[in-house]
């Protein structure tokens, strides 16, 4: 999506992070990150490993707790109140680097589990939605297999379908293609591209610069626990403002 063809309704802010800090014991991982995401925006976060980008998106659904600052998701502030946290998590889908499918459940059971238990949907409806999602990610014929019987790319597509089954307002992707063999990366990126075009609000941590160029509205560059630079893809790749960004880009684009 291009920033110029934004509709007026998509201008309100769905995620607001202000001065977010996090420590792992003495290690200061996040050093005052501030970021605002609008509805239907697609944000790509990149940066060297250890820069805190994964930790940052995990604070948005409170898989990691932040120790200072403020995070507001769809009008709800993340605090110690477990009810707020669960409510926010129901609105945020997350896709992990290691898929994290439930190995003891079939593909269909993986996808219907949360709608059945956290949304209390009737079984028929949950299964209908699950089958639609499997069609959407292109593997309806795998519904009754176990995750261990699928390829990595198929597993990650199931994981995306599982997250979408809760009909979330926001999708977080934590290096979704980093654990995949090269020939399977495309099938996952295709699904993500289609999702971005459909108007989903997305935050994607990835090293796939091709995907960033095509699908992102904004690219955010992380280093040493903070945002160094954020810009539109075109500007980001053509005229990086910071020296650190230029160095990073030269390293990942030359090979």
């Amino acid at each position, binding site marked *: 999506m291009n920033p110029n063809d934004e509709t007026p309704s998509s201008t309100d802010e769905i995620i607001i992070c202000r001065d977010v800090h996090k420590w792992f014991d003495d290690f200061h991982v996040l050093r005052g990150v501030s970021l605002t995401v609008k509805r239907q925006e697609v944000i790509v976060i990149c940066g060297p490993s250890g820069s805190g980008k994964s930790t940052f998106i995990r604070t948005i*659904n409170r*898989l990691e707790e932040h120790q200072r600052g403020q995070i507001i998701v769809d009008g709800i502030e993340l605090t110690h109140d*477990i009810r707020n946290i*669960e*409510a926010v*998590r*129901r609105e*945020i*889908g*997350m896709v*992990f680097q*290691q898929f*994290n*499918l*439930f*190995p*003891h459940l079939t593909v269909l059971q993986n996808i219907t*589990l*949360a709608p059945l*238990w*956290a949304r209390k949907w009737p079984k028929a409806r949950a299964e209908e939605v699950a089958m639609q999602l499997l069609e959407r990610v292109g593997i309806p014929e795998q519904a009754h297999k*176990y*995750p*261990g*019987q699928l390829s990595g790319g198929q597993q990650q597509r199931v994981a995306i379908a*599982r*997250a979408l089954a*809760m009909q979330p307002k926001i999708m977080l992707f934590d290096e979704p293609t980093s654990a995949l063999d090269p020939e399977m990366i495309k099938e996952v990126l295709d699904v993500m591209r289609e999702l971005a075009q459909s108007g989903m609000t997305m935050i994607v941590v990835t090293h796939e610069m091709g995907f960033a160029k095509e699908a992102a509205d904004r690219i955010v560059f992380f280093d040493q626990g903070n945002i160094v630079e954020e810009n539109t893809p075109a500007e980001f790749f053509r005229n990086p403002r910071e020296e650190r960004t230029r160095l990073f880009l030269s390293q990942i684009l030359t090979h």
Partner: protein
Amino acid sequence: MSSHPAAVVRPPAPPGPVRWLKKNLFSPWYNTVLTVLAATFLFFVLKGVFTWVCFRANWTPVTHSLRLFAAGQYPPEQLWRVGIILWMISFLFGLSGRVWRGTFMVFARGLAIALGALALIPLNLSLLGIGARLWLLANPALVFVGYHVGHTRVGKGRWVLLGWGLSFVLMILLLTGLPAIPWLPPVESGLWGGLLLTFLLAVVGIAASFPIGVLLALGRRSTLPVVKGFCIVFIETIRGVPLVTILFMFSIILPLFLPENVRVDRVLRAMMAMTVFASAYMAENVRGGLQAIPRGQIEAAKALGLNGFQTTLLIVLPQALRMVIPAIVGQFIALFMDTTLAYIVGLTELLTVARAVLQSNSEWLLLDMEVFLFIAAIFWVFTYSMSYASRRLEMALGVGKR
């Protein structure tokens, strides 16, 4: 590759029985020697065991005390209650065999064959009367009936489960009796004995220690310091004390703490002791499984909006328990055999019956070999059934494959 199709050769077919023998038993000369030696050794051992069991052994203490081995001092005129319990079990196994198939079907068949064979065993009618034989013979029929009831609308997993639960309560009521019903006079639990008592102790111990053990394991990993502390203290205390001590504590010390008008039944106290003991070990087995669950599984469940209880129930426990099936079943088997220690608090379980039988007749005093072999065989049949069931369960759940 495709230009040389002939280069792809089918792997050689598995060798036939003769080649298998040659390859595995006779290939170099020293294997032939070993095979011959082992075969000779086996032949003499088996021949010795066979001739002893069939011709030399004197099985009279066993054949003359079948009732004692089955139910101890349970009043003979009330034994029909035990018979009805057996009927219920046969029926339920038939039903479960139809509904759950697999292992249950194997056990249903085994039960029908074993009880049928027992009914027709070539023994003097004074040792096993016509009435008892007919009672036993009804069991295969009830397995059959249960199997066919399984075809009807009752044949649903949850009804069968309910059936097992309800009939367990009914069985206990039958055994204890009710003062209000004239034809069901109370039978003091001190009279229960033999296989009946061994079974009761084991089944109650297993059924109660499993859920308690799971709760203790979860509690030990809790973030609430009080819960965690209690579980650690409980588990470590119980694991640090021998079962015999715990049995003594429950049977002698517990009554001292209770008010005078509260009397806990002797068998019940033994059951409580076994349960407490087994649940501490169960907790540690389950904890091993809990610790093997990758953190990503819990994160994925939380990210989907499941609460802590749902995450534990739907994601963590099914995977953790599946991993520790062998350890849990090992624990069950140990518990089954530990029931013999109940003799220490004056209960006449199977092994105690065996010794009582030996001492009951001066001519039988030297026949301990026969009697204890008989007891060992009974224990072996049941423990082997348990490990067989566990292997089938592992296969059905695809342990190590998914």
